[in-house]
């Protein structure tokens, strides 16, 4: 019988939540790496037993972990992330030049075909790759060498490369996003990159055609249509139908177009999900109501999904890597909150129930659909 495995990264460790295909009874394993910040845990599409985790601490730096048994046991792998050549400077918050400094790995994106190959998005923003199961990491320097790197500026969370999307139809094409530089695309396997931010509007940038400087929070793609991307920007939900060459706003009737997560239904490429968040400073749901919004029209027309979610006195956040979708016939949707809840919907968002309520603040949620 098929099943799902939800991989949860939190401020104080990693957790593995497992269920069969019914998604009613769950087992909770963890905390793994107790006390450490786990920014991301993700499994290999090519081998679901191969799972990678980014473990870190402000005191003791970056550690990388690998599991070969679906997250039951782990072993540390290489944790050396050295920028290629002389890293130079990016812009600091006040616009002054600031040296590039490695801080942490935000996001791991395993290859679609090779369990030993993984991309890592790091802060300060750069893209790294391993091809030996995590033992060695090397930078793909073409991204920072794009020419705009000296103008990249950190968002509130740092200058982080937080999204990596691999094109399932074209192994040479990769999309990435950096807060607060914008989105970028390579069509040659990472050798060269182009900024794909035309059509984005950001209040703090006077030039409407600015190549970089946009605070992209998250990108999402449906595997059947890799040229259609959805974006949750700092403000605005956006869509492109031409692989990022141009973007259109699809915020429509959302109560606020600020948020962090965005994801796509497993079987309906025009069905997308966001969690609107009140901003700029509050970063909690409007009116204390935790609502997922779903659009079945690829944006613009949104419906609130509230059944099973707290509709009063709820002031949590849902961070950018904390939503995931399984691919069972009735598509499952999962998200985690800074209050430590992980909610699951086994009916594409119509209703929700918590898998766990009291984890440490959730940083990331991924799900594996198991055969």
């Amino acid at each position, binding site marked *: 019988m098929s099943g799902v495995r939800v991989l949860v990264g939190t401020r104080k460790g990693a957790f593995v939540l497992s269920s069969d295909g019914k998604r009613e009874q769950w087992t909770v394993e963890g905390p793994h*790496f*107790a*006390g*450490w910040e786990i920014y991301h845990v993700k499994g290999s599409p090519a081998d679901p037993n191969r799972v990678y985790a980014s473990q870190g*601490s*402000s*005191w*003791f*730096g*970056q*550690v990388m972990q690998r599991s070969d048994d679906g997250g039951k046991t782990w072993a*540390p792998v290489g*944790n*050396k992330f*050295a920028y290629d050549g002389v890293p130079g400077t990016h812009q600091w918050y006040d616009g002054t030049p600031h040296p590039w400094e490695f801080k942490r790995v935000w996001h791991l994106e395993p290859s679609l075909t090779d369990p030993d190959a993984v991309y890592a998005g790091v802060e300060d923003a750069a893209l790294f790759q391993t091809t030996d199961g995590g033992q060695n990491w090397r930078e793909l320097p073409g991204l920072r060498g794009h020419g705009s790197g000296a103008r990249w500026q950190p968002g509130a969370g740092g200058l982080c490369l937080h999204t990596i999307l691999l094109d399932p139809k074209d192994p040479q094409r990769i999309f990435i996003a950096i807060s607060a530089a914008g989105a970028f695309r390579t069509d040659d396997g990472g050798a060269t990159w182009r900024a794909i931010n035309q059509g984005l509007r950001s209040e703090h940038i006077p030039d409407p055609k600015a190549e970089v400087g946009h605070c992209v929070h998250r990108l999402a793609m449906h595997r059947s249509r890799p040229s259609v991307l959805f974006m949750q920007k700092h403000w605005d939900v956006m869509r492109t139908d031409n692989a990022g060459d141009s973007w259109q706003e699809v915020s429509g009737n959302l109560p606020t177009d600020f948020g962090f997560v965005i994801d796509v239904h497993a079987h309906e490429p025009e069905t997308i999900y966001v969690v609107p968040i009140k901003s700029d400073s509050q970063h909690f749901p409007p009116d204390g109501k935790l609502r997922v919004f779903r659009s079945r029209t690829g944006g613009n027309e949104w419906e609130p999904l509230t059944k099973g979610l707290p509709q009063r006195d709820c002031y949590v956040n849902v961070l950018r890597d904390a939503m995931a979708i399984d691919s069972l016939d009735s598509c499952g949707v999962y998200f985690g909150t800074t209050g430590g809840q992980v909610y699951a919907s086994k009916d594409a968002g119509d209703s929700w129930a918590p898998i766990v309520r009291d984890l440490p603040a959730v940083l990331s949620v991924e799900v594996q659909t198991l055969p």
Partner: protein
Amino acid sequence: MIRVELPAHLRTLARVDGEVQIDVGDRATVRTLLDALEARYPVLCGTIRDHDTKERRPFVRFFACEEDLSHETPDAPLPRAVVAGTEPFLVVGALAGG
């Protein structure tokens, strides 16, 4: 043998309980001690000092014999009591209270 006391997070990472004992040979300095510690527990590479520069991470400090050795040159001899094994060398995560 030099006794090294690691902070809890690094003990967990290195999968050790309590102090670890490290043999550094004739020349016992912070540098040779950490070289030997990392050779025995490679998972600690990069967690106490930088991979390449070997500089102490900013939020890590070193103490021994009730003295702060964090800012000493890493090539200075360790205190005799540490070399003799009567006092531990402490690796401490810098804290400013809770």
